[in-house]
């Protein structure tokens, strides 16, 4: 099973907004700048085509708050 869901560690996230820019297909910023899944999911699914972008977002999160996890 590939790691195909996005997990946000809310205790680490401080709303820098990089993930919403790099993964705009999946995430938007809420009114306070924190990532919000477009589909409303707590751990939004990452389609195969977006896996590379998702990995990049995980790697670039300055708070190390983002992870790809198994569903």
């Amino acid at each position, binding site marked *: 099973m590939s790691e195909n869901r996005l997990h*946000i560690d809310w205790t680490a996230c401080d709303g820098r907004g990089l993930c919403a820019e790099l993964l705009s297909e999946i995430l938007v910023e809420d009114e306070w*700048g924190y990532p*919000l899944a477009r589909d409303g999911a*707590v751990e939004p699914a990452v389609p195969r085509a977006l896996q590379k972008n998702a990995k990049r977002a995980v790697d670039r999160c300055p708070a190390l708050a983002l992870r790809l996890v198994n569903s």
Partner: protein
Amino acid sequence: MTVVDVLPGVGRRLLAGSTDGRLDTHLARYARPPRLDGVQLVGLLRDAGLTGRGGAGFPTWRKVEAVLGASGVPVVVGNGSEGEPASGKDRALMAYQPHLVLDGLQIVAGAVGARQAYLYVAAASAVGVRAALGDRRGAGLDPVPVSVVVAPERFVAGEESAVVNAVAGRAAVPSDKRVRVTEAGVGGAPTLVQNVETLAHLALIARFGPHWFREAGTAEEPGTFLATVGGAVGVPGVVEAGYGVRLGDLVDAAGGPAERLQAVLVGGYHGGWVPALPELAVSRAGLAPYGASPGAGIVVALPVGVCGLVETARIAGYLAGEVAGQCGPCVNGLPRLATTLTDLAHRRGRAGLGREVDAVREVERLSLLVSGRGACRHPDGSVRMIRSAMRTFDADVAAHLAGRCVAEEAR
């Protein structure tokens, strides 16, 4: 907080017999706790159907089994921190029956092979618990050493991962849930956190068996629970009853309604408002249609002359003040929810919101926005309480939007 006598038909187990908290009276009634191995304990708990009494109601046997299956020497923690302001049952239990709790802690610790156990309690319980542990040491009752850790008086300090952090010497705030504490908790060891009331029930199940346990409660939700009954009742306090007890009987056990009641908050500040129907069964099944559950057994009675929206706004404000400060959506969202509810409660229009965006829609929007977006269930629990208020007090919501108040007119 007093422990009041219960009516016939409302079971009494944890609060049966002497409640002086002494070891000699405890041993005279119950004798020394039995020793069980892990397989025996899991079987007993599964047959009994014991669920956690701290609020979430998770099957106890599953957590024990998870810890048994994890690698490493487990740690066991009894949780009596009771950060919920409307609850007094854990402190009452620690004062009146500390040895049932400590028996339960030893039985579990022995069964899972723990070498260290902790009791995490409110400051009010610490002196009594240390004295009880001293008496037990003299009697050679505690093969697994027990350390007492005092919980800070914060709402979220009793959340499972916050308990683990506090016991490990860190701030008592929740952690991200990528790894379960039953896998890696205190010092990386598999950790079993159980509410103190759960441990007391377990101590009785180990002695009297699962069939005895199932004589109270319902087939689906067996056993008794401690309820903290407060608000507009004659004698606020802690009572014990089987799951499925009529709401009216529970209120009567606490002296009956002090005034005519309009609603009841069940399950505490993360619980749900339900109409004050005496026939309502206090069980998961009975409360599910209202989006509520017995939770940690809290029942707060609201009289007809007090506005449910004002009370809800007050609680929402309290909950917003109790955020751990870690998770952005909760830190920002709960105060916004509280402000919106306060405006609605005081029938104020809100600056910045167009007339077409009424408070009801704003509450719903913010509720959806914060749900599921935190390390713990504080936002979700707060939203559950708030949304139940919008349903149960719907007539008052409409009245407030029209500049009136139903409760005010009922006075």
